[in-house]
């Protein structure tokens, strides 16, 4: 029955209002400024949905149990009450029973003077907090929480998304100029720099790895690594990664201008890359799969899916599979992934110093990655007869193809004859491979 007591207004607070503004901002940027609408609209709408209280779309249920036997002295909460992590649900003569997460009470299962044994259920609670399932296991009861748990936390959607990205990626420019693989490698410096910064700011090793991998600028890689190493911060890292991928046109240019002179930015690169044969395009995903997975086995889900998608594209005999991966499948996965990622941002999660710090470190990761790519390009120019425009190093930030487009636009401003897009695509796609390898290395060491 609809009544004021059952409406979301009772639980709505200033934090929800602020998050509605942030979600609205994402949607505005997507529609009015056309900034990565396929990502920002579902993320922004996911933020809206999860900040309208009692909607239940991102709810998890868990039972709070007594850790020791005792008699219930006082029950301090009622059904429907909101609480923060660490609040007291009830007092036993043997100690307090605290809430392990933020949320609200679904049902109180004890009453005063009742005797409980260790392990007895004290209360059933509902939360939107992402938890380490080995420590605080929860059961998804909402639409988006089910998609999140069974799609993302079970590591299903991110590798499939990588398969689609492989089908969408043309490795031709990189194969025509394999030196650009090194620029993609250099850009992964941003991953490790952000990793160190995260440790300095007090994050644990697994959390620092999850924050560092934002610098790979690959959404599926970030989600995949974080879901295994630090699921409690997956919302912040994923939103940071996808948001900054959309903000690459704002992040990259100042970094490039800071590290290059006008003369360097105007370096002309011949627009014609050598033609890459069909056999090379077919052999590349097969060779890469074998080499990378033998060296870094933990990169298998990401690298394997990436390369099989690319093989679908390049072999010429699986057009149906390639077309499906490039269109229907990628769209479906984008909807599920980004909507549920946006829904990991209720105000209680987002408006924490830890989350805001992750967002800042994400920008640091992106900017450092771009800087490292530019610096290596300049170093390569010292030893190379045919100069490369150092701006293409910044395209190692593998927000494909946005980074390459940014370099193209900047290149044309400095020298209207310069057509850098295809040259920048080399490091751009190489960065995607580098990010998957970096993620696999983290998982191999820490996971």
């Amino acid at each position, binding site marked *: 029955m609809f009544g004021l007591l059952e409406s979301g207004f009772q639980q709505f607070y200033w934090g929800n209002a602020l998050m509605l503004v942030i979600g609205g901002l994402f949607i505005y940027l997507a529609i009015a400024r056309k900034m990565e609408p396929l990502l920002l609209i579902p993320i922004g709408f996911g933020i809206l949905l999860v900040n309208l209280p009692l909607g239940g779309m991102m709810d998890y249920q868990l039972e709070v149990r007594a850790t020791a036997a005792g008699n219930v002295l006082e029950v301090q909460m009622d059904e429907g009450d909101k609480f923060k992590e660490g609040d007291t649900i009830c007092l036993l003569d043997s100690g307090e029973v605290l809430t392990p997460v933020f949320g609200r009470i679904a049902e109180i299962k004890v009453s005063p003077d009742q005797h409980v044994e260790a392990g007895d259920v004290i209360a059933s609670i509902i939360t939107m907090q992402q938890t380490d399932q080995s420590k605080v296991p929860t059961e998804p009861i909402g639409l988006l929480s089910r998609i999140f748990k069974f799609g993302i936390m079970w590591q299903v959607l991110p590798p499939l998304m990588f398969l689609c990205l492989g089908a969408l990626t043309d490795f031709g420019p990189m194969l025509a100029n394999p030196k650009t693989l090194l620029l993609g490698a250099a850009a992964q410096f941003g991953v490790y720099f952000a*990793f160190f910064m995260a440790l300095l700011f007090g994050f644990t090793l697994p959390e620092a790895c999850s924050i560092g991998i934002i610098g790979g600028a690959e959404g599926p890689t970030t989600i995949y690594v974080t879901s295994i190493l630090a699921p409690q911060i997956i919302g912040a890292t994923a939103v940071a990664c996808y948001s900054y991928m959309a903000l690459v046109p704002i992040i990259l240019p100042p970094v490039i201008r800071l590290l290059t002179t006008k003369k360097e930015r105007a370096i002309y690169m011949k627009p014609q890359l050598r033609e890459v044969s069909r056999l090379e395009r077919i052999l590349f995903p097969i060779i890469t799969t074998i080499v990378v997975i033998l060296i870094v086995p933990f990169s298998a889900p990401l690298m394997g899916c990436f390369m099989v998608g690319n093989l679908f594209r390049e072999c010429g005999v699986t057009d149906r599979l390639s077309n499906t991966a490039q269109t229907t499948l990628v769209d479906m996965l984008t909807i599920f992934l980004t909507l549920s990622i946006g829904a990991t941002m209720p105000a209680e999660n987002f408006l924490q110093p830890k989350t805001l710090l992750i967002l800042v470190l994400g920008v640091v990761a992106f900017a450092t990655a771009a800087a490292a790519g530019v610096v290596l390009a300049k170093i390569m120019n010292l030893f190379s007869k045919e100069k490369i425009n150092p701006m293409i190093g910044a395209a190692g930030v593998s927000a494909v193809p946005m980074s390459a487009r940014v370099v193209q636009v900047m290149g044309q401003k400095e020298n209207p004859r310069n057509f850098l897009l295809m040259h920048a695509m080399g490091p751009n796609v190489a960065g995607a491979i580098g990010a998957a390898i970096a993620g696999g*290395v983290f998982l191999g060491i820490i996971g």
Partner: protein
Amino acid sequence: MVDWNLAVRIASGGFGMVFLILAVLALLVWLTYLAVNRFSKGSLNTEEKKRH
């Protein structure tokens, strides 16, 4: 308490590993190009000889 020794080993080893793998890949891509080029030139020469 952060084990900085471990952190340095993770970062340097990780970055080194990524760089090494991509350098190896770059080399393999170049070698594949040479092999494919040689193979297709060899095939063209054989076809020309057959015609003459």
